[in-house]
């Protein structure tokens, strides 16, 4: 199938709406897997076997107010081929804390201590993003068979269009050259020249106003 044909037939909608349409109450493991793949370093901190992680992401979706509560998906013939999550930067701290608490509740006390200790080490190397009304893209992922077809670009432009005239923010692993290159091609640049963080902030400025 051609990329153009794929794009034509795919539609964007919130995952909650997709679940309602399909009469599903729980997050599909394939979607949970996609969201997990968008932030592997975070989920690797959970001291559980890999096969448990998909269920843990699904649990984050079921609790309102977490990072994973409100995904938007690109749906083609009933299949989720890409997913993204965004919310205002001002909600980042509250949503991260609610999401981490949702995971911590599923763990034993020993597992929880290990998980939080790993996150604590990681948190020190994450470049901060100031709270604002501008969108923060928390996750963006495309399923393996649908990559290099413009689907991630379509999600980014959807977020930009839905957010009005304002900039976009995200975090990226400093070693993830393919991701950094992709974001640069889509108008993002590092938010600062500070290279000390393992997870860096990127920013796409608001488009110039076309008003006279």
């Amino acid at each position: 199938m051609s990329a153009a044909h794929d794009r034509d037939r795919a539609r964007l909608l919130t995952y909650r709406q997709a679940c309602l349409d399909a009469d599903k109450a729980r997050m599909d493991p394939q979607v949970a897997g996609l969201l997990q793949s968008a932030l592997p370093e975070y989920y690797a901190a959970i001291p559980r076997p890999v096969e448990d992680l998909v269920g843990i992401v699904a649990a984050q979706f079921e609790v309102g107010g977490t990072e994973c509560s409100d995904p938007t998906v690109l749906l083609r013939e009933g299949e989720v081929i890409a997913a993204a999550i965004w919310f205002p930067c001002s909600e980042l701290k509250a949503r991260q804390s609610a999401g981490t608490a949702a995971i911590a509740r599923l763990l034993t006390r020993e597992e929880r201590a290990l998980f939080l200790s790993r996150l604590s080490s990681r948190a020190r190397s994450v470049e901060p993003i100031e709270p604002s009304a501008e969108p923060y893209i928390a996750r963006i992922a495309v399923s393996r068979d649908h990559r290099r077809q413009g689907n991630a670009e379509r999600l980014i432009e959807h977020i930009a269009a839905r957010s009005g005239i304002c900039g976009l923010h995200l975090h990226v692993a400093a070693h993830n050259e393919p991701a950094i290159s992709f974001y640069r091609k889509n108008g993002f640049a590092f938010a600062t020249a500070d290279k000390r963080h393992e997870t860096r902030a990127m920013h796409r400025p608001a488009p110039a106003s076309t008003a006279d």
Partner: protein
Amino acid sequence: MRREEILAVMTQIVRREVDDEAVELTETSTSDDVLGWDSIAHIGIIVGVEEKCGITFEPAQITSFNNVGEIVDAIERLKRAP
């Protein structure tokens, strides 16, 4: 649970989470007063308190507390809720 009991539970859990038996809490204590009570330790404290008190905080509540007294207030309200 009386407020003093809740405060005692919180003190016990904060001591465990920041690994410091010398921690003493009052209702006006804040996370800034306790060395090691950062945003990650806060999650351990919140989930530990939930387990001990048999409650679950609303997601938006977790980062909304300004001091220990506000956490005690929230626990009292959740314990009273049907």
